[in-house]
């Protein structure tokens, strides 16, 4: 295990991405909306200062947005995804080991860098990411992941830290723990925070100093690990190879209510094919496919319907063709006429390695043919662009696609969308 973990976190990532391409938005309040423009999922510091909340419905926030001329965008996950890949790939140059923790966070191994001034090095990382990608990041480094997360939080908030905080000396660690509320410790949810407050444990320093027995009793084994990490004993290492996912879900709210079985079929086919693609990316296959559909629970006056169907596959599969077929069967089983559907999804479970799949004597599917077909499909879609080849069931221009009215262009992935300059 490394002796020094650094957590690099992009500041207000979605908003920062917009600012890269729109420098005029610096110092202006900016928010980014979720799929379907339903709610706020990212806020610039100026937007936070106006009291706009994470997850706040757009319609509710709209008066504030209009009053203060807050600039708002739909989320463009293609653009966000590419900018995230640029940040991660830039970070990878600075460390032998890295864990991509989320779209806008990564843990870097900065242990064993002899003769290098770590705060200086961290500032170089920060400046390079900023210069190359335009994205501002904060860096917290410490002997455990939990402490690195805590350092990062302070790095982001404290003016003095200016985006970089390295905690290795005991007195600095103590001061940092003392100024962090238990509720702000990574892994302590609001329920545990309330519980800890009732025991008089208010800051992270107090939490680090409880007995092991106390931690285990009140916070379970997971909590004990967390307490140990706060004391500087690393309990979790970098996860360099992300573990194969146990369940994969693909679902979306529709841009407009969907009433016909055909439109639902198209949506479900798209979701099933996304699941199949993800399975193939991690070289897995699944045994169980679940489909769910439901109406809009917020439209109380309209008839409501929710149902889900699970199908066990005879043989594990990652073939788009097969998963689409089974998902369609499940959908046909639960679909009822006369409802305005708001959302559908496909969930796959019982995921195992693709090559360890159990055979079935009734299996009539030519598995090697499917496998080479899928390989070709993935290669075509990779080289010619996403969605170049798909199964016919996915449809061509679906009406159910989520609406994103204020979506920014795909500046970095589509040549017709690049910035126009004079």
């Amino acid at each position, binding site marked *: 295990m490394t002796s020094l973990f650094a957590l690099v976190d992009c500041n207000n990532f979605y908003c920062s991405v917009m600012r890269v391409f729109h*420098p005029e938005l610096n110092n202006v309040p900016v928010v980014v909306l979720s799929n379907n423009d339903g709610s706020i999922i990212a806020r610039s510091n100026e937007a936070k200062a106006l009291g706009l909340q994470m997850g706040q419905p757009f319609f509710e926030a709209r008066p504030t947005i209009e009053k203060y001329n807050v600039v708002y965008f739909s989320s463009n996950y293609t653009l966000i995804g590419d900018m995230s890949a640029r940040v991660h790939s830039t970070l990878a140059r600075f460390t032998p080991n890295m864990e991509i923790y989320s779209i806008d966070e990564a843990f870097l191994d900065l242990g064993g860098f002899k003769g290098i001034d770590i705060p200086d090095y961290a500032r170089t990382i920060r400046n390079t990411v900023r210069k190359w990608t335009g994205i501002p990041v904060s860096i917290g480094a410490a002997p455990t992941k939990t402490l690195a997360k805590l350092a990062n939080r302070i790095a982001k908030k404290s003016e003095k830290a200016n985006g970089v905080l390295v905690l290795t000396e005991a007195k600095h660690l103590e001061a940092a723990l003392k100024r962090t509320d238990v509720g702000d410790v990574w892994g302590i949810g609001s329920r545990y925070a309330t519980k800890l407050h009732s025991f008089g444990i208010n800051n992270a320093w107090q939490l680090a100093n409880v007995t092991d027995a106390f931690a285990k009793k009140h916070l379970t084994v997971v909590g004990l690990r967390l307490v140990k990490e706060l004391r500087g004993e690393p309990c979790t290492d970098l996860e360099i190879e992300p573990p194969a996912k146990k369940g994969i879900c693909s679902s979306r709210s529709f841009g407009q209510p969907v009433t016909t079985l055909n439109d639902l079929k198209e949506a479900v086919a798209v979701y099933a094919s996304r699941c199949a693609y993800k399975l193939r990316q991690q070289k897995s296959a699944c045994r169980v496919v679940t489909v769910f559909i439901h109406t809009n629970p917020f439209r109380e006056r309209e008839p409501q319907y929710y149902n889900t169907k699970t199908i066990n596959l005879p043989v594990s599969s990652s073939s788009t063709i*097969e998963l689409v077929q089974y998902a369609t069967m499940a959908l046909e089983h639960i679909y009822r006429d006369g409802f305005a559907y708001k959302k559908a999804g496909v969930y796959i479970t019982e995921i195992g390695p693709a090559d360890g799949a159990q055979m079935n004597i009734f299996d*009539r599917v030519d598995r090697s043919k499917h496998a080479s077909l899928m390989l070709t499909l993935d290669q075509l879609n990779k080289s010619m662009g996403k969605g170049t080849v798909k199964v016919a069931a996915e449809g061509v221009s679906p009406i159910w696609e989520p609406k994103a009215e204020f979506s920014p262009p795909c500046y970095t992935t589509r*040549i017709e969308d690049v910035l126009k300059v*004079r």
Partner: protein
Amino acid sequence: MNTEILLPSETVSFVLLGRDTETKFPLFAARVPAGFPSPAEEHIEDRISLSSYLNGHPDATFYVRLEGDSMIDYNLLEGDLLVVDRSLHVRSGDIVLANVNSEYTVKKLEITETGVRLLPGNNKYKPIEITEDLEFLVWGVVRGVARRIRQ
């Protein structure tokens, strides 16, 4: 040929698909060979790639489309795709993508003892003197240009 299988009540009964159902997916009717060994395999080199020729660091490289005629003297024409590299250290004499008062502009950057100027490549336009009251940033250095002759 189809085989019916009955599953526990939690799940639906379904038909295990036989070969004949594959005709439902005409897109995939063709057989795809899984690959064959080639005598040239050991001599394969990557093909010449224009993007690796034009681009610097891929993580720091962005493309923009040039409009207008302000850079014709530098052989940059309307419709050109400019390759902008953010990782390059900015030097006087570089053609840069700058942002002046919230407007993007591609110009030649001139840094002298008397100040910073953005020079157009067309005498129809005037140089832009960068004064303190302007909001100015160099977004990236134009490293290359791609142009199609035949559309």
